[in-house]
């Protein structure tokens, strides 16, 4: 598929939204941004940059994306940093910090940082700023992970680097630490035109269900998530079994097998044991999944579940809401930001609650439809890539006038 242009987004978000973006871009004028992260493939950040960089360029904001280069020893350390910053227990030796800084210094000497705005994504390249302290441009640290309770040893090491930035961006107030620099909120966003979210032909959707041998004779309840204890797939099966005493339906569990996650086999075995030999429960394991097929599963479902016990932002919720599906979500992490209970979906706190929610939605199709429609609107308002384009334009304006709370552009 060719990279979509702004024009392509008019169809899905409305021409008025694109028109406003172009007006704002005209006020921003000829500016430049440099995005820096640690990988060009895989992961949500690279996917987001792959889409947003061409769109910013199309709006006249000259935007480059560069990836830091390093050996495996660096990425092994930053993987441990990533987990520890999200709360994992760990203790780091002095040489881990030295290796981290050495690779940042090497990259700082090889890259140019001439853009008006330099956006550093996540902790891996965060120390680049140390070798650019006498800059004339603006530097922003965009943190995509949950920093609400970081490993203290690591945070005390990283914080002085972060506080050298002009500002930081977090995905939610829930995820941000105390810092002495300005903090902005950019929600994570989905792309309505990528394979996971674009409109599909009905015939393709039907072919996917045929391919995997899933009958479409009964209402379908689906959870698409890794087989991870925090996603509670066992709880989903239990809730489904309780609900099925009252409503006839099928359950579909879809998950990717993570190469670096030995626990997933254990959880999958537990899920299968809980499901028993029920002909109404379908368990699929992919390695990896195909985006258009995930899209098809979501579109054909009567209910999407994301019954997480602990979460990051869980954009799978926005993916389902964008397709106007009613969603039942665990009240964890970023899920309550997307699901306003009773209005854009249902929030649950237990297996029993999830079971009641399934019964409620399958027995009240009008209510379920209304939740899906309001959910679609909420995603359109807050969680689409076009909204993040707008946020970047506003950020460029805000950084020019850091003391102003209202800007009047004439």
């Amino acid at each position, binding site marked *: 598929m060719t990279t979509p242009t702004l024009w392509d987004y008019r169809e899905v978000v409305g021409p*008025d939204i694109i028109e406003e973006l172009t007006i704002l871009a005209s006020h921003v004028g000829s500016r430049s941004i440099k995005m820096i992260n640690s990988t060009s493939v895989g992961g949500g950040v690279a996917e987001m940059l792959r889409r947003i960089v061409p769109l910013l360029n199309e709006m006249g904001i000259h935007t480059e994306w560069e990836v830091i280069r390093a050996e495996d020893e660096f990425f092994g350390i930053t993987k441990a940093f990533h987990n520890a910053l999200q709360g994992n227990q760990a203790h780091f030796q002095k040489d881990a910090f030295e290796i981290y800084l050495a690779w940042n210094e090497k990259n700082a000497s090889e890259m140019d940082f001439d853009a008006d705005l330099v956006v550093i994504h996540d902790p891996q390249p965060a120390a680049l700023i140390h070798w650019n302290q006498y800059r004339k441009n603006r530097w922003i640290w965009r943190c995509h992970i949950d920093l609400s309770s970081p490993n203290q040893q690591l945070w005390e090491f990283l914080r002085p680097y972060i506080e050298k930035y002009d500002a930081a961006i977090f995905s939610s107030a829930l995820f941000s630490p105390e810092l002495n620099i300005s903090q*902005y909120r950019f929600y994570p966003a989905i792309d309505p035109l990528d394979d996971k979210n674009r409109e599909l032909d009905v015939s393709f959707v039907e072919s996917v269900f045929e391919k995997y041998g899933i009958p479409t004779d009964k209402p379908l309840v689906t959870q698409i998530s890794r087989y991870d204890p925090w996603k509670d797939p066992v709880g989903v099966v239990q809730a489904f079994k309780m609900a099925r005493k009252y409503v006839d339906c099928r359950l579909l569990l879809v998950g990717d097998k993570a190469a670096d996650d030995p626990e997933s086999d254990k959880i999958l075995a537990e899920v299968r044991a809980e499901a028993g030999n029920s002909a109404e429960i379908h368990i699929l394991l992919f390695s990896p999944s195909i985006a258009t097929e995930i899209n098809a599963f979501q579109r054909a479902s009567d209910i999407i579940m994301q019954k997480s016990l602990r979460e990051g932002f869980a954009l799978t919720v926005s993916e389902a809401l964008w397709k106007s599906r009613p969603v039942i979500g665990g009240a964890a992490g970023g899920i309550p930001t997307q699901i306003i209970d009773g209005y854009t979906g249902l929030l649950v706190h237990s297996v029993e609650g999830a079971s009641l929610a399934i019964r409620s939605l399958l027995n009240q199709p009008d209510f379920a439809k209304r939740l899906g429609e309001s959910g679609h609107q909420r995603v359109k308002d807050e969680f689409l890539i076009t909204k993040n384009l707008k946020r970047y334009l506003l950020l460029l304006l*805000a950084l020019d006038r850091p003391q102003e709370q209202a800007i009047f552009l004439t």
Partner: protein
Amino acid sequence: MWGICMGDVFQFLSSASLEKLTGRKANNLEELLGLIRSCPESSIFYHTFSAFMKMRDVQLPYDSDFAIWADLRLNEKALAERLMAIDLREYNTIKSLRARLIEIIESHRKQVPESCEKIASEPFYLYDIMRVVYLTDRFAYDLRSFRDILKNISIYSIYFHFIESRLHTELHANDFSTWIEGSLNMADLAHRIRDIDISVYTIEGLRSRIIQLIDEYLKGGNH
């Protein structure tokens, strides 16, 4: 009124905002009161005017983040209802809106002293906002051209002129009604638009309702 730039021409404006995290939060009613008393006006704007627009789009029955928090996180239903009853259209300064919020919470605290002992199930996170107001290239010269533009202009522009701009003009009327009455001399239509109860419409619904009123007016031979 915002929007007139020459003679009787109405130029549509629009607004956008960037959310800022403040690191400040409230775990109980007393702390919320402290935040409301001490936060910048832009924070009050964010949690009332900005929040209201988002709530309209998903048809939430609340009109501010304060009301949602009081209801869902503090389980103080009576307080939530009184906060929900605030009609933002009656406030053309943040100062007066802030005073009203404080008055409601203080009054509730007196009536239900135990409400101050409660710890919320989740904190109230105080946000701030950086607002940008900007000109669009859409001009209306008469009622028909106004209607045609209204059909396609962004919801942000409609919201700005109908609700937000009164903070700039310090008037108690929306820009559309002010222009239609003042420049087009159509007082009856202006009043009908002014009397629309925004609390039952999404912004798209508001757009449709205004267009419907204009169509009825034009159909009645009033042009």
